[in-house]
């Protein structure tokens, strides 16, 4: 079975570019909704074990976490890490009453996860001609145990970051795939490598 550590440089380059195109679509959706400019990072792709994924995700700071599973042609999970800082400005741009209630804050976090992770996943699926269904996001608190319980031992972490210029808001989106889905994706990448 193919594992993410066997990703060639060319395959990594193709995945990175496809993800970059998907992120552009995601940023545009959010920019139109908030009527502001979003800065996007260069996507990073790495092979990680659940423990390494935990280290990748876990940062000290005032952060909120969501996870969304996806299925059909490929299976995996999208984890979004969202800063609480800057969220009230985002809420204002989304016409929420200030100050934000706890319920409103959660709603905004889930909405942002859904828009950005959803647009990234659908962009990636469309380019790879794969069908995927994304489930609704759920808030979660990361602890080592929840990562030990992930259904894969090797996963491909595709990490992207969105920053909003007018506030201190930032969000990272990490896609995790199991080995079988990775093999499927690598198979479909061949068309780009010709």
């Amino acid at each position, binding site marked *: 079975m193919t594992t993410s550590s066997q990703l060639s440089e*060319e395959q990594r*380059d*193709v995945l*990175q*570019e496809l993800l*970059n*195109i*998907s*992120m*552009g*679509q995601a*940023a*545009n959706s959010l*920019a*139109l909704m908030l009527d*502001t*400019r*979003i800065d*996007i*990072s*260069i996507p990073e792709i790495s092979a990680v074990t659940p423990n390494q994924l935990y280290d990748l995700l876990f940062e000290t700071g005032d952060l909120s976490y969501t996870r969304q599973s996806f299925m059909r042609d490929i299976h995996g999970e999208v984890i979004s890490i969202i800063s609480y800082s800057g969220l009230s400005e985002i809420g204002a741009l989304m016409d929420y009453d200030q100050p934000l209630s706890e319920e409103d804050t959660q709603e905004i976090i889930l909405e942002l996860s859904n828009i950005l992770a959803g647009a990234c996943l659908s962009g990636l699926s469309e*380019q790879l001609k794969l069908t995927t269904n994304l489930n609704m996001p759920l808030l979660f608190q990361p602890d080592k145990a929840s990562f030990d319980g992930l259904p894969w031992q090797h996963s491909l972490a595709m990490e992207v970051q969105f920053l909003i210029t007018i506030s201190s808001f930032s969000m990272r989106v990490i896609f995790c795939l199991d080995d079988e889905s990775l093999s499927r994706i690598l198979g479909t990448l061949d068309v*780009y490598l010709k």
Partner: protein
Amino acid sequence: MSLSVLIADDSKLARRNVVRSLPLEVDFAVTEVTNGQEAVSLLADNTYSLVLLDLTMPKLDGIDVLERLQALENMPNVVVISADFQPEKQRVVKELGAKFFLRKPLKKEDLTAVLSELGYL
């Protein structure tokens, strides 16, 4: 005489797509770079007719490159080819002198139309 083109994009796939999308009827002399810093260095010492510029790149991004190009006496024609097509980004790059903005994934017909507008075809 060939037409000197600088392609700046960190992705090999994207650079290959650009090269493949160049119309065959023009003799292009293509130079490729993988980040904005290399692009700025080459543009300082060489004359290019056309720059095909990505925005999301390491070291210096495409907007940084455009800002530095302002100092050049003769600014080449710059066409931005980017996945980041937010209206605000398009406005900024046009303000900084880019002639056209094309969305990734690049379509051959879009590049051909732009090159025609610029008088290369």
